[in-house]
């Protein structure tokens, strides 16, 4: 069956194109198109397919995540882009050029490649590892060295400390960073990442994901990213290609569309029953209305604090040190006016949230710490306000109202732009997580 490559998923994406690239500027990002690509195993024409008639288009500068269960052909699809595997039928185009007409080694030197086990060469130093492609391209030693230093800083590693070490000396997370630096070495317009964060623990994984998102905002590369983890796909992708066994494309859409309008039961099941919660992955702490943080400095007297707040001093005050970094919460009601607030009186601070933290992670951290509010800090770690569970759930309800009710034939069609309150009729049952325990088909209000 023919699949049309819809333009719709790209609506609203700010995409760099060749048209707005300044003349002479390096080629920052490439487009990738799969054109009816099929890969069969075995020699027979009717052999089993690893990838079946795959067609999609990734605009320049977008991150496209290929996601699906094992054996769905996502890694095979990725490896066809740098010709480690050749398709049986169909074409893959990079910037409109059919890659089958290009020399494989030259093609690969222009594509960054990160693999699951990182694939750093254990017998080479970090600097040598990062400089693999520049060396293949014949860059001078000096230019390579400068580039290695620049890249290690970019991925958050101190060049002086790491350049001459070996991969075995590094932690899993550090090796993963070096892997990304290596893929970026020759500034390729396209990166292929095959489960790049598959081999690190969940905490490091989340941090590496955040760093890649930050990097991607800076660099604007086109990225093809393979994962089996739908959460990672939703977090990392501008576009997500959900694949299923046999290598067929189940849905190609933006993460939001995937969560609100799964194209089939398979996609709905793969995305999971907690779609409403997952939608929180798409929102950041920065989008929340923050409550002001009642800040008190180290050594400040309670009297001064009370005078400053004009008698409406909240009970709990956020103690910050001389660098204005949070120390902990202080119960102001127990302290007399004359008392200077010191660190001994503080209890541990509630979770610190970055502005880029996803609401899902934020909610999880707050629930974990059993607190009502987390401290939102800026890049320097200074508090800028408080993010509350109430604010997050309010946003969740708002989201539910925007979802259409097409799974429910009896649901009243909502107005095109619903701005009504949380009890609007368009609200989805499975989104009402806070009430819990209800069957999805329970009577509705």
């Amino acid at each position, binding site marked *: 069956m023919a699949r049309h490559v819809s333009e719709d998923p790209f609506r609203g994406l700010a995409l760099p194109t060749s048209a707005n690239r300044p003349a002479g500027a390096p080629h920052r990002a490439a487009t990738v198109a799969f054109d009816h690509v099929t890969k069969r195993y075995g020699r027979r024409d009717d052999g089993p397919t690893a990838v079946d008639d795959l067609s999609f288009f990734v605009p320049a500068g977008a991150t496209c995540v290929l996601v699906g269960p094992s054996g769905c052909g996502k890694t095979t699809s990725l490896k066809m882009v740098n010709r480690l595997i050749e398709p049986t039928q169909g074409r893959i185009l990079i910037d409109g050029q059919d890659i089958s007409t290009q020399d494989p080694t030259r093609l690969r030197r222009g594509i960054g490649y990160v693999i699951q086990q990182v694939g750093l060469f*254990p017998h080479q130093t970090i600097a040598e590892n990062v400089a693999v492609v520049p060396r293949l391209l014949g860059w001078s030693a000096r230019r390579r060295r400068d580039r290695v230093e620049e890249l290690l800083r970019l991925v958050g590693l101190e060049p002086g400390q790491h350049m001459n070490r070996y991969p075995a000396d590094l932690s899993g997370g550090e090796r993963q960073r070096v892997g990304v630096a290596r893929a970026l070495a020759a500034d390729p317009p396209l990166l292929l990442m095959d489960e790049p964060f598959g081999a690190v623990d969940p905490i490091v994984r989340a941090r590496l994901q955040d760093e890649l998102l930050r990097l991607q905002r800076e660099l604007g590369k086109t990225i093809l990213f393979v994962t089996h983890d739908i959460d990672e796909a939703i977090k990392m992708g501008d576009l997500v290609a959900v694949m299923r066994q046999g290598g067929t494309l189940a849905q190609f859409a933006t993460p939001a569309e995937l969560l609100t309008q799964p194209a089939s039961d398979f996609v709905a099941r793969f995305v999971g029953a907690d779609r409403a919660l997952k939608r929180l992955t798409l929102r950041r702490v920065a989008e929340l209305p923050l409550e002001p943080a009642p800040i008190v400095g180290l050594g400040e007297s309670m009297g001064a604090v009370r005078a400053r707040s004009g008698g409406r001093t909240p009970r709990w005050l956020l103690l910050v040190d001389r660098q204005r970094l949070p120390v902990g919460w202080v119960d102001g009601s127990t302290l007399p006016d004359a008392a200077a607030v010191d660190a001994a009186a503080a209890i541990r601070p509630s979770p610190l949230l970055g502005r880029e933290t996803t609401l899902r992670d934020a909610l999880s951290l707050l629930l974990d710490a059993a607190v009502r509010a987390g401290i939102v800090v800026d890049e320097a770690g200074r508090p800028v306000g408080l993010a509350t569970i109430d604010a997050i759930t309010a946003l969740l309800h708002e989201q539910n109202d925007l979802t259409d009710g097409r799974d429910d034939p009896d649901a009243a069609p909502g107005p095109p732009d619903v701005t009504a309150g949380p009890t609007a009729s368009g609200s989805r049952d499975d989104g009402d997580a806070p009430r819990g325990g209800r069957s999805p088909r329970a009577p509705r209000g």
Partner: protein
Amino acid sequence: MELAGQVLAWFSDPTHWQGADGIPVRVLEHLEASGLAVFVAALLALPVGLVVGHTGRGAFLVSSVANLGRALPSFALLLMLIPIAVDVQLDFSTWPILGAMVLLAIPPMITNAYAGMRAVERELVEAARGMGMSAVQVLVGVELPLALPVLLTGVRLAAVQVVATYTLGAVAGGGGLGRYIYDGFARQDTPRMLAGAALVALLAIATDAAFGVLAHATAPRGLAQPLPGRARQPAADQAG
């Protein structure tokens, strides 16, 4: 105890340290011939082992050569090669033993070169190819350095075996430390025979030690420590 004293006395006799049958000359002869045999065997075995390990094709050839080589006793080979050497008018005190030693040295080198290449992680090779290295660059820049420790172990094994076995050369009239054993036996000069055996043992141990030092010096630095986290994860998406 008396015998040990006699052997020591043999060693302390200054005439045994001089001339064409002196210890230094015999040791040199032994090392020269062993070195030549290992060198020739390496030229034959290593390229085959590396190529088969690199391509994964012809593994059957490697295991056949290795098994055949282990099954053939060097002494029998030597006796088979002597009439051939006489036939083609080659010096039968030099060439048959060299041939036997080359055949002795090939199996450990070919199997270790092969095993070393196979032990290089597939992911690394694929990463190298995926970054745009040519087949030769992958072989020389990635596979060979990583296979080197295992490969050198093969050379070390071969060298020690050849040094220990080259004593057979004396049977065909060749030089080396085998002369002391063979002549000692022929003349019923037990101290000489034992001294020869002790010298061969010492030389074999020294060879092993020398290769140990070489292996340490040439080991890729990043591999000096055991690699953490190298255990293969069950690949979730092997086929996909």
